[in-house]
């Protein structure tokens, strides 16, 4: 990801929609991937992605450049997705359990690779399903986005040891899912 120039940020902050579009294009893939992994439903994820970019647009004028634009956008995306997932898991726990293949079964499988891809997606969805939204965010950022513990801590605005313990609990949960004898201690 190349960094967006300060000039573009300033223009977008003043309401220049073309400038904002280039920020959108730069960060859309990250936002979409993270939001979809955390929120799980395609329809919900679209709403959340829209909310993320609207939050960015409305708050660009308060962005003072103390953290990198990338970090700031990551935070908004992750926090919006986590909040949404928490709200969902409280309100529609059952719907969530039955409907979570929607995001995964996106395109029909065509060849061997596509089938493998589908299986891999389902496997990941099943693992992430075993986690709460906080744990899920840490695993998505670590295992799918490749962030270090320090970077995750900065993005979620939590201490690094909280990152560590969430990752530990998340992995214990994933292990007990695969091998039932490794149940949570």
């Amino acid at each position, binding site marked *: 990801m190349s960094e967006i120039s300060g000039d573009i940020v300033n223009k977008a902050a003043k309401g220049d929609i073309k400038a904002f579009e280039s920020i959108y294009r730069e960060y859309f893939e990250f936002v979409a991937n993270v939001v979809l992994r955390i929120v799980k439903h395609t329809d919900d994820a679209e709403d959340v992605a829209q909310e993320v970019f609207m939050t960015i647009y409305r708050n660009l004028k308060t962005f003072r450049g103390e953290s990198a634009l990338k970090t700031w956008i990551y935070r908004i995306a992750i926090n919006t997705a986590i909040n949404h997932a928490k709200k969902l898991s409280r309100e529609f726990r059952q719907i969530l359990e039955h409907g979570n293949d929607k995001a995964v079964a996106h395109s029909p499988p065509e060849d061997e690779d596509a089938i493998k891809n589908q299986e891999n997606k389902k496997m990941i969805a099943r693992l992430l399903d075993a986690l709460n939204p906080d744990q899920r965010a840490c695993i998505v950022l670590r295992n799918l986005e490749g962030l270090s513990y320090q970077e995750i801590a900065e993005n979620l605005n939590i201490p690094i040891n909280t990152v560590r313990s969430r990752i530990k609990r998340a*992995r214990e949960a994933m292990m007990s899912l695969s091998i039932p004898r490794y149940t949570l201690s």
Partner: protein
Amino acid sequence: MKCKEIQEVLLTDYLDGMMNEQNRREAEAHLSSCVYCKEFMEIAMESTVEPFKNAPKLSLSHEKIWQRIKEEIISEEKTAAGAGFLSELASSFKNIFAVRMALASAIVAVIVVAAVVFLNPVGQNQTVKNTTSDESIQYLASIIDELSSTTTEEEEGYGTEIEKYFL
């Protein structure tokens, strides 16, 4: 180190390659001599790390969402055209209030200093007087500290106002 402690490290820093050389060697020494931890490690690797390798990126419809965002921005700007004036008015009131706060604390400080200087009991010797005013100055300093810390508190954080949604 005991197996349980080792396993905690294996599950986090070791799996993620975030250990320093010495700790890594220590963990590896344990792994090569403990069958139980070795098996634990293999299962952890297989069930918590491998599945995420080469994971396909998920995506949403880029254009569809951009159209929705554009529509929302345009409709927001229409309503904001009327409300913009009001919000500017509100923020200038906020600024006036901040200036008044600063003024008020300065006046309080002056009054306290005056009180200390004028209300000191007559007839006490010089040393006592000095102690009293030293204490008062410290007290004053603490008040001023407190005042300035309450006004700067909201300035700290992510560097934006967005944090208020998340804290």
